[in-house]
């Protein structure tokens, strides 16, 4: 028994004297709870919707007031043609469009029946469903209200159309997210570990005391993983298209080009991490722990970014996978071209350049 207690005491010493492990032990749960607590919410907040009110009568006004009452929707009212509505979905990232036909109230009064069209961006089927249900509920609420003063049953029929993903396949939302996650993790982890391994075995010392430029050393480390990631990418795409019936509505070459950019970005991040770690274990820990959680949370495929509190939303802007996710969805699901995603591409390019620049600048060409 005494021996057992000796061991226990020793183990406590080890734990408390290892500052890095302590940080993880206590820091990580706190960070996770805070992040997940705030980020994860299925409530809708500030969803961008457009209302096309052709009728502009008291009925539509009542419904619109109700829709505006909560803070779930950020409403823009404008009259748009169908093409214009489609563009709004594509370019302005609206989530929902509600269209009231010209004779809305008149139809209600005279025909006891009116129609409303709801169009949702179903590339994220969960959000689409939630928004549609919510809008429908409000409309039904109004219907109930009317029925109180009327003995004849009234009906407001909502006709829903799910854009981009009529079958509401979950895959359309999560496959691009998985692509981002997998490419990021693999590239970061593999380059970081590979470089740090040279440090650990001591071969890095020999490479440093040689005419070869450090730039070439680390670029050569990244190259095999670059090609492997392209293969990885192909496999994921093939599987998604054949097994999960994902569409590739846009240009495949554009998709590959953007993915190449993202891969280079992830590799640069790996290089940066390896500059500052001395052991493979640390490299793995930082790559996995440090990259996994933020990527999952902040890419936007698990939890919609609009639902997060503003400070977290700002943080998501520095997570490269968030931009890649938008790019992939735009190309694969919405079938958009470069003109729609040039901003995101620019951001990704800038991030990559910055990471490469910093990692090369901070590469230690001496020990310690």
């Amino acid at each position, binding site marked *: 028994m005494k021996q057992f207690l000796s061991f226990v005491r020793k183990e406590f010493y080890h734990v408390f004297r290892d500052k890095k492990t302590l940080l993880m032990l206590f820091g990580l749960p706190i960070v996770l709870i805070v992040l997940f607590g705030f980020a994860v919410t299925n409530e809708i907040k500030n969803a961008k919707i457009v209302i096309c009110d052709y009728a502009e009568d008291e009925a539509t006004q009542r419904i619109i007031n109700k829709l505006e009452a909560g803070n779930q929707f950020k409403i823009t009212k404008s009259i748009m043609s169908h093409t214009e509505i489609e563009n709004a979905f594509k370019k302005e990232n609206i989530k929902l469009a509600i269209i009231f036909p010209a004779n809305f109230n008149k139809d209600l009064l005279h025909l006891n029946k009116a129609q409303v069209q709801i169009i949702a961006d179903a590339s994220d089927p969960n959000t689409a469903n939630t928004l549609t249900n919510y809008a429908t509920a409000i409309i039904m609420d109004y219907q109930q209200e009317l029925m109180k003063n009327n003995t004849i049953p009234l009906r407001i029929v909502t006709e829903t159309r799910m854009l981009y993903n009529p079958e509401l396949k979950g895959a359309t939302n999560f496959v691009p997210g998985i692509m981002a996650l997998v490419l990021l993790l693999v590239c970061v982890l593999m380059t970081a570990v590979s470089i740090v391994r040279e440090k650990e*075995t*001591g*071969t890095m*010392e*020999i*490479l*440093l*005391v*040689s*005419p*070869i430029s450090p730039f070439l050393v680390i670029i050569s480390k990244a190259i095999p993983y670059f090609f492997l990631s392209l293969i990885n990418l192909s496999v994921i795409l093939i599987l998604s298209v054949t097994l999960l019936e994902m569409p590739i509505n846009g240009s495949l070459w554009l998709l590959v080009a953007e993915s190449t950019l993202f891969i280079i970005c992830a590799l640069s991040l790996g290089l940066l991490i390896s500059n500052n770690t001395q052991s493979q274990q640390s490299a793995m820990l930082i790559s996995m722990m440090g990259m996994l959680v933020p990527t999952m949370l902040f890419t936007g495929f698990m939890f919609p970014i609009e639902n997060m509190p503003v400070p977290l939303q700002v943080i998501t802007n520095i997570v490269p996978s968030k931009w890649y996710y938008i790019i992939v969805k735009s190309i694969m699901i919405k079938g958009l071209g470069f003109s729609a995603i040039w901003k995101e591409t620019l951001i990704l390019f800038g991030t990559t350049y910055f990471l490469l620049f910093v990692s090369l600048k901070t590469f230690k060409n*001496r*020990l*310690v």
Partner: protein
Amino acid sequence: MADVVLNNIVKTYNKGEVKAVNDVSFEVSKGELFGLIGADGAGKTSIFRILTTLLLPNSGTASVNGFDVVKDYKTIRKNVGYMPGKFSLYQDLSVEENLNFFATVFNTTVAENYDLVKDIYVQLEPFKTRRAGKLSGGMKQKLALCGALIHRPTVLFLDEPTTGVDVVSRKEFWEMLKGLKQQGITILVSTPYMDEATLCERIALIQNGSMMTIDTPDNIIKQFPDKLFAVKADNMSRLQNVLRNDPQIKSCFSFGDFHHIIFKNGNEHSQNELIQTLQEANFQNIEIKHITPSIEDCFIKLMN
């Protein structure tokens, strides 16, 4: 002009807490075989890393082939050969692949400088397709040496190349170094083994980051200030106690089958007086003789 020069080099770690190299200065001439002799933690590796430009000294200057280790590090890195401790090789590459890689890194080929490594490489050749990780310690040592030589360096830095290697390989290694010397390469070797010191042309004895002396092994031995005696008897353990407590004896250190002693006020009678003392203490088979000190004797003397 000397090939390697150090002037008042100081290196500390842990924000000055650990003084690894404490005001070290010395020079190594072209083509010299120079040994840095000292225990673990004496500062040998730190000195080598400063000379190969892997570490910056806290103060002091150093140069290799006339190039400053801080400002001209790129030039130095092109011209020196370096074999760090624990023979850093690519474990999952074969002997051939390792050597070819190191040759290419230095913009040359194995063929170009083959004459330099031939004597060593022939011993490796039967294993040339074997992965480096699967070689014995002695073989790894030879491969690492080839790797450090393949670009015909002007100066070769070998950090503890014989540690952890079997006795036979160690002897062979020093033979190879002597052969290399004839090619005109300046060689700096560090080792904790005192017996290897005599195989060098000049040595520096280093302890706790400071140089105790720098000279040829012969000169160091000649400078030993006292007359050294070796004493032996039937019970060596008891003998050591007796000798240490003897008021006539200044120091007593065990050296294998003899104890090495120095008399406090030695004269022609001291030896016989000691024999008598020991006989009275019931020791048998007493043997005392005057001996020339070894480097280890000198090292111990300097440590005190």
